[in-house]
């Protein structure tokens, strides 16, 4: 049996729709489970494509509203385009936006010149910790994905951190049949990963289908674009002419370069991400 080209593309469309539906449903289920089980939730929004797509699914889970605040950790080194995009979306989607910043470290002159590991820890991890302490958040939604990077592949959907922010990846409880571990002591906060099972391609396909607005830095200015958004000094664009979501998807089909290749902190030294993450990095 062979299919005509139009039948083939129809079949492909249907399969893609079912596939994206399944990813979306799982994410909605996780959102609602967390919302039911935890008081005082917040979502970390990096302004990147992943957490923006995740935010879109949150609106689906809660019928158009987002019933918890969005936290953006502003290292003061972010591209101004990101901040403009952030404020526009926050206004249009009626989000409660909390911006966190480690002012003390910045006043002390913290920056990547003091060491990338130190800088990420101070301006991101510690800023987040200050935010969590100040608001008493018990659960934080994070848009990380298993396929991004080795230490993230080992994550659970509900992943506790102790008072010192430590992640004990050597002894994680089993997670099965969507019965998540949601009862923890008062001295922990829980990282919740609603899009852990998505891939980079999935995110872009979903953005295309749902027409989700994403930060303009992902699209080529004619010669270069960003594949992953970070701080200006530690994140480099790469040569690309992909100016639309379709062109980005076509480009990703061809590439074998890892997604985070432009992120300097991943390459600083061996296992830096694992070390950063065990200390509470996202």
């Amino acid at each position: 049996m062979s299919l005509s080209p139009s039948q083939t593309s129809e079949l492909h469309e249907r399969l893609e729709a079912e596939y994206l539906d399944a990813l979306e449903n799982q994410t909605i289920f996780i959102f609602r489970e967390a919302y039911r089980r935890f008081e005082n939730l917040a979502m970390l929004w990096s302004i990147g494509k992943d957490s923006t797509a995740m935010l879109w699914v949150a609106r689906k889970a809660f019928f158009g509203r987002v019933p918890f605040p969005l936290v953006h950790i502003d290292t003061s080194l972010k591209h101004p385009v990101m901040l403009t995009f952030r404020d526009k979306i926050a206004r249009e989607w009626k989000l409660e936006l909390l911006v966190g910043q480690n002012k003390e470290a910045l006043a002390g002159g913290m920056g990547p010149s003091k060491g990338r590991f130190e800088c990420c820890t101070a301006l991101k991890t510690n800023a987040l910790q200050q935010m969590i302490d100040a608001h008493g958040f018990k659960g934080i939604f994070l848009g990380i994905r298993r396929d991004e990077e080795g230490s993230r592949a080992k994550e659970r959907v509900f992943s506790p951190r102790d008072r010192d922010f430590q992640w004990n990846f050597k002894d994680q409880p089993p997670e099965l049949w969507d019965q998540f571990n949601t009862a923890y002591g008062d001295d922990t906060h829980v990282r919740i990963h609603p899009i852990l099972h998505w891939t980079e391609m999935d995110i872009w396909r979903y953005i295309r289908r749902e027409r989700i607005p994403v930060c303009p830095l992902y699209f080529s200015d004619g010669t270069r674009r960003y594949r992953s958004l970070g701080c200006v000094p530690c994140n480099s664009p790469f040569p690309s002419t992909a100016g639309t979501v379709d062109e980005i998807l076509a480009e990703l089909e061809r590439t074998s370069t890892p997604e985070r290749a432009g992120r300097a902190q991943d390459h600083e030294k061996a296992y830096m991400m694992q070390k950063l993450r065990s200390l509470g990095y996202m």
Partner: protein
Amino acid sequence: MDISAAMPKPPAEPALRIVIVGHVDHGKSTLIGRLFFDTGAIPAERQAEIERTCQAQGRPFELAYLMDALEEEREQNVTIETTQTRFRSSRRGYVIIDAPGHREFLKNMVTGASEADAAILIVDGEEGVREQTRRHAYILSLLGISQVVIAVNKLDRVGFDRGRFDAVTADAVHFLHSIGLTAQFLIPISAREGDNVVRRSERTHWYSGPTILEALDAFSPATLDRLRPPRMPVQDVYRWDDRRRYVGRVESGTLRRGDPVRFLPSGRVSRIRAIERWPDDGVPQASAGTCVGIMLEDEVYVEPGEVMAPLHDCPAAAVEVHASLFWMGREPLEAGRRYGFKIGTADASAEVVAIEERLDPASLELKERYAQKLLESEVGRIVLHLDHPVAADSFELNPKLGRFVLVDQGVVRGGGIVRSLSLADGARPRRVIRLDGRLLADPSGMLVDLRNESGDLELAADETFLARIRAGERIALRFAGMRPFGAFLNWAWEHFVPFSFRREQEGVWVSLGAPEYASLRDHYQDGPGI
């Protein structure tokens, strides 16, 4: 011109998630490496790197090292959690859920395999079925993974001897049948040399079945949940925008606007007014897997944890659960103690009334009856008493509402499947046996063996089972007594299933489908009648 560039790209097909299990050193890592290697999933620089390492150490290039090299954790000596890796066939993508063997293996295998659509059980052709082969197969059966390939490996070491392959598969199939598991494919391979993994081997001329990759391609990631009775566990109730929305995921079957529904265990009744999937205000129906918001025609008080079901096809409101359980806690499970019990979206407190059977985790033989404790990594049959009624199905009828976890100090420590239930009013619901779930493949045809079943039964089968009968496949049933046979008669009557019947000393044989029946009917239709 490159035509392939103009064609639509392969779709984002649902990837099939597979788990590879088997006894230590029977070749799991080599098989994974081979699948990666032969499907071109390994980046060239990585392959070169491994070749250099092997050369430097004076070893031949071994596929098993490939997996090692892909795990930075190996060097780090970090205990490895389940890792996921991907490859593609021409048909679809695959995710291998790999849980390398070590002390924490069971916990990780369960976490990984509980997400799997299909499994490859690998058996060394020289050594045959061993302890872990049996144990892993048993866990597959507990997790309800029914798409299974048996790969008999290392056949290059026995000269691709057919007799050896037959002996090992007979042994494996026999054990699988004893735990209610059926392998759809039995494949002779050498993972090391690549025979019948991705490439068809010329050294197994006596074998005409599929390769491993072809067998995987024949499986389906779609579960049969849609064909099972409609159920939606209520996850939460949102009271916003002057609306009361009962949110949840339809776990099985299909719910439609206008359906009369009942909530269990409360027994409250209403009708579906609207099914919401934002930004869509009203969709006509929702099938298994879909997260929705339901609005009812009446304002009924329903709590999260209750299950919404059709008025006349409800789950049981259970207070007593008979179950098979695997225990993963470092502290043993103790008879007489209470644990958290989670099923669907419901929570309860459960007392372990009895550990009826404690099985040896290696051999799966009965170790102790009415035990006091179940140790880490052990499996057993237990009886739980719940502090309040909870909606549940038997695992056989509906896996999604027939499996639960036990929680100790807030952490999941055990996974179980419901064998049978007792209702809140003390009655036992009629036990439902799914014929499709009991179908054993056999060279001479297919068999459903119900000789161990007794008591008040009801038989059920899905559409694929009925289609097989219509297609003329040979399916036989065996019963020991009159009552199960009576249940069969009810089922055959309801579904217009023809059969022939033979009574023997030790029971009853039934053969489904009766080609001669049609000619009989034609014969009498024109005649005087009987």
